[in-house]
């Protein structure tokens, strides 16, 4: 048995964990869990834990529905015990078929495959997301109430969300998820937590854990936290701007000290790759009907496919690194992502698009200098292409994309399109309050 497994088994024993939660993620990005007793853990490392995947979104196959979950000892984490509770542990799993081959429906395996391709090209892929979300008074969809919107005199409720956020950050840090910044966002009751960068696999695991922890801590205070991209009309939605960088060993592959603005040829091609394929991969980075209500002008979300240095209205922004930290700090920020994405799949398609840019030496267009937030709907034609306007457009673009098909693999690609077409279909036939209010009396 290897040292890591031994470490995990000893720790579970020493800390008397009563339960080990085996975590994995379905195609839509929902966290799934199988709990086992600590005594089963050793066997789980050796033989995997068999379960029927047919009930899990994107796992179902016609002929074979049984799959194996193999815990990844690297991702083992004790859950910080709260007063009076028993210690539990969580560990992310890789899903395989019964013959041991990676299961095509497992998003974590998809990301691993894409990271292996990057590693073969000599790159390590690092991500740092900025996760936005809202705290609501309840999870009742008929009446979403922000907690701190009543008025700014309402110090009690304002303090409550700050306190919840503080406890959330303690939980995150205690689980080894370092938080870079956290603050109250623009909209009422909207908060943001920025994570310190890590390799994409660790970060995708962390985003899954973060969504869970944010919700749990909120729930303990009787509050509902939502990562829905646009819960309220008229105020900003929740995004997940993600900072991306490629590293070759100790060197930042995006940095070139001899370039006028410090950007390497690799960085330029990577950005070009993102821009060329942005339309095709948006269905993955913004997977809900609701996602597209965030991607509109006027709310600091990107609409046009463009890049710029330090211009927050572009789809790809290249932040100016701190002085003296250019070699470490050079990175780019992809601003379309929202926190309701499946991070494994979203990081996969972004990486694949960037690598395609490097492989084929895509030319980077001129950067955008106008503020696209102000240019409104009637933007000049030379601003170029726009992101898909709704889920249907995004799915059409995705369906034509060889790049996304290859990055996700046939199984997930097909399943995702089928599932999302159904979601769009259900939405298309829905009669909304907008229509009733506007048309019922007039016509």
């Amino acid at each position, binding site marked *: 048995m290897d*040292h*890591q497994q031994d*470490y*995990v088994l*000893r*720790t579970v024993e*020493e*800390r008397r964990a009563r339960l080990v939660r085996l975590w994995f993620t379905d195609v839509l990005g929902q966290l799934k869990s199988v709990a086992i007793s600590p005594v089963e853990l050793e066997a789980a490392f050796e033989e995997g834990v068999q379960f029927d995947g047919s009930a899990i979104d994107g796992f179902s196959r016609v002929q074979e529905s049984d799959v194996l979950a193999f815990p990844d*000892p*690297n*991702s*083992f*984490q*004790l*859950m*910080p015990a709260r007063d009076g509770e028993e210690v539990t542990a969580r560990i992310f799993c890789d899903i395989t078929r019964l013959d041991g081959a990676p299961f095509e429906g497992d998003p974590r395996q998809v990301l691993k495959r894409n990271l292996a391709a990057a*590693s073969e090209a000599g790159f*390590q892929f*690092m991500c740092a997301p900025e996760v936005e979300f809202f705290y609501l008074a309840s999870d009742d969809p008929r009446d979403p109430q922000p907690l701190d919107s009543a008025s700014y005199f309402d110090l009690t409720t304002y303090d409550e969300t700050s306190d919840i956020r503080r406890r959330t950050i303690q939980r995150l*840090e*205690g*689980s*080894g*998820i*370092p*938080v870079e910044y956290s603050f109250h966002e623009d909209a009422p009751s909207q908060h943001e937590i920025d994570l*310190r*960068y*890590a*390799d994409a696999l*660790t970060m995708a695991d962390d985003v899954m854990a973060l969504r869970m922890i944010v919700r749990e801590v909120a729930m303990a205070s009787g509050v509902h936290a939502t990562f829905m991209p646009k819960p309220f009309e008229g105020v900003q939605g929740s995004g997940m701007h993600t900072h991306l960088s490629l*590293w*070759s*060993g*100790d060197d930042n592959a995006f940095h070139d000290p001899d370039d006028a603005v410090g950007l390497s040829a690799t960085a330029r091609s990577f950005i070009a790759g993102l821009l060329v394929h942005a339309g095709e991969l948006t269905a993955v980075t913004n997977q809900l009907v609701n996602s597209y209500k965030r991607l509109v002008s006027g709310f600091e979300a990107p609409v046009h496919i463009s890049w710029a240095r330090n211009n927050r209205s572009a789809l790809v922004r290249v932040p100016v690194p701190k002085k003296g930290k250019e070699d470490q700090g050079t990175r780019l920020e992809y601003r379309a992502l929202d926190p309701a994405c499946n991070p494994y799949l979203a990081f996969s398609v972004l990486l694949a698009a960037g690598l395609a840019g490097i492989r084929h030496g895509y030319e980077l267009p001129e950067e955008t200098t106008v503020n696209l937030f102000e240019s409104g709907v009637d933007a000049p034609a030379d601003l170029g292409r726009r992101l898909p306007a709704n889920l249907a457009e995004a799915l059409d673009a995705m369906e034509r994309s060889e790049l996304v098909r290859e990055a996700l693999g046939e199984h997930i690609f097909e399943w995702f399109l089928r599932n999302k077409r159904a979601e769009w279909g259900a939405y298309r036939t829905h009669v909304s309050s907008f229509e009733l209010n506007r048309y019922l009396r007039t016509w």
Partner: protein
Amino acid sequence: MQPLLVWPDPAPPDVARVLDLAGLPWRAVADEAAARDGVWSGAVVAADEDPERGFAMARTLRRGDLAVAPLLLVVRGTQLADLDGRHDTFDDFCLAPAHPTELEARVRHLLAAEPGLALEPDVVQYEALVLNLETYQAAIDGTPLDLTYMEYELLKFLASNPGRVFTREILLSRVWGYEYYGGARTVDVHIRRLRAKLGEEHAGLIQTVRSVGYKFGESRWGS
């Protein structure tokens, strides 16, 4: 582990420094009476300054009723002839001034050859931090730290070498080993995670040494 006996008292600074950095417990003794007042896992006798008394001390320590073993003798090159006929009083010797690496290696080698003597400590301690190497558990101020395997290994390595500055490359090769192809950024990520878990109060135990790497705490010897 029982302490090493060191003669003379006060101990020669270079010997004390090597033993401290190696994390080996030791105590200086001035004479036979002081030597009788302890249980020893071995001895380092520095006979280079005062060979007459040094050789006498070595012989005393090897007498049947004391029988301190193993014993490392430190002598000058000009005294090598004096070792003739004294081989029963020491197990190994090294020449003064001894290179710290040689002195440490010889002490470790002697101790490792001793049956039933566990050279590796089973606890690493630094201020409020305690790592139990037997059970893989780490605690700070008595509160257990929930570490991943690599975080534990990294902390163990750093805490076992307080005050030493390590580059990312050295940490990668010593802690991760060759099986890992990740790259030096991995070290930064894990350091940041360790600091998060150590908590605000203790995060400063791991210091960033600008454009070099990382350092844990202060040397037991002072820097």
